[in-house]
């Protein structure tokens, strides 16, 4: 007979996030509650949680790249990246964001996923450049259109990151897949898993890229 009561743990996660509580607390509370409901005693629950955390330390290894990335930022890596993008002529919002999508996917695929992101590149670089390009196409922007351009800038960063990073074999999600399947006796190399992320990466580029071109057309039609 299957016991459905532990599903309360999932409900706790949903409620915790819905109430915008700190995810670290929500996760911890859900873990403890789930263990207790499943009939473990409190010491056993804490020990199980601790053992799992210790067994997954490999996820924390990725952070050793931060001192290098930080040093390169110190010497103007972000400014350099901006200069490269600014050198592009005839930019439209759609083309600019497609370029950023490709840049984000490729850099994430070679492990440079933390060189860009919403605070580092989207707010200071991508969104202002996309807005400037939109003004060229459309004339002065009303609030709704400006809002859309900014939302598409952030969305493009997410799509590029999510469907680029898994091609890099030392990323947390690849490690997690490897660890989970290893518990069932399937010992896979990270590179093998990373390879199968490529077809989806191409599909993501085509689908999101097509939407960006349609967005370009809409900007042009609505303007002038």
């Amino acid at each position, binding site marked *: 007979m299957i016991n459905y009561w532990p599903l309360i743990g999932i409900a706790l996660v949903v409620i915790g996030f819905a109430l915008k509580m700190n995810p670290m607390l929500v996760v911890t509370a859900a873990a403890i509650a789930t263990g207790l409901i499943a009939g473990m005693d409190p010491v056993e629950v804490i020990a199980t949680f601790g053992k799992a955390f210790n067994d997954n330390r490999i996820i924390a290894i990725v952070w050793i790249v931060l001192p290098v990335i930080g040093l390169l930022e110190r010497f103007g*890596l972000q400014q*350099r990246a901006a200069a490269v993008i600014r050198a592009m002529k005839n930019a439209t919002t759609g083309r600019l964001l497609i370029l950023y999508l490709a840049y984000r996917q490729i850099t994430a695929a070679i492990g440079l996923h933390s060189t860009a992101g919403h605070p580092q590149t989207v707010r200071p670089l991508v969104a202002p450049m996309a807005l400037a390009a939109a003004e060229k196409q459309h004339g002065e922007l009303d609030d709704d259109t400006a809002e859309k351009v900014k939302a598409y800038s952030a969305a493009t960063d*997410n799509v590029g990151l999510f469907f680029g990073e898994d091609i890099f074999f030392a990323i947390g999600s690849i490690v997690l897949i490897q660890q989970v399947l290893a518990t069932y006796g399937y010992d896979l190399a990270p590179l093998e898993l990373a390879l199968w992320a490529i077809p989806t990466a191409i599909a993501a580029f085509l689908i999101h890229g097509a939407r960006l071109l349609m967005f370009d057309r809409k900007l042009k039609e609505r303007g002038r």
Partner: protein
Amino acid sequence: MITLHWLYALAGAMFAAIALLSALDSKNPKRLGNAAFWGLMALSLLAGDAIGDFGNGLLVLGLAGLAGFGFIGRSHPPTTDEAERQSWSDKLGNRLFLPALIIPLTALIGTLAYNYTPLGQAGWIEAKRETYVFLGLGVLLALGTIFAWLRPPAIAPLQEGRRLIDAIGWAAVLPQMLASLGVLFAAAGIGDAIGSLTRMVIPEGSVFLTVAVFGLGMAIFTMIMGNAFAAFPVMAAAIGVPLLIQGYGGDPAVVGAIGMLAGFCGTLMTPMAANFNLVPAALLELKDQYGVIRAQVATALPLLLVNIALIYWLAFR
């Protein structure tokens, strides 16, 4: 033999140094909280095998308490300002990208060389862990190159590392916490419960419908949990491993890799994934806090269908 423990030691030493620098940062009002938080991470990496399961459990409770009750805060370690960075960028030009490429290239070339040349037969690296070892080597090579070329202050890499890890904050530890939650969920039989619920809707013997339920399940469960990391162990236990891999003989690499990406489609559609969807909406000062999600749904849904089709075609060749 070089094992993962060498890398734990390297990362642990980095977190220990960051903890120490945090404690000494008199400009950060939450310096002691930061020092304790990164100090616990250092302890986990350096001595996790020595303090026992219950000790590790207390360590995790400490991390969650420090993060959850607001004891950690962003610091502002010394770095260059915008104008200095601009002038470095102008002066160094595109050569600046070269040291950035050392880490990925070392990891990539090292992994390929280790697996496809006689180099690997000596067995001097823990099996299947060579990529991480070469990643660590790449970090050290990149640091050496930057020091030889640009001569930053000796403390700079640790201060710059602290600047970035503090900007990320507790989110840097959350993936490991969610993986641990997944283990407890599995121990409590949540995989079995979800599995039996989903198996009720799967018609016996249809590979395609089973793949579809697996892909949709990954996306929906990711939306509920806000993170594909938490969804993957559950869906793997419920459908991926027992039905797709063991039942129908699907390729575990395809089921795992593309199953995770089906989950990422869910991440694009949920406010639970606050870091990606709600934080940028605030950062860009959007009036609609779900504006970013709205811009993503029409990419996420067709891509989810593509992922389901890809698993069906590629895993059962």
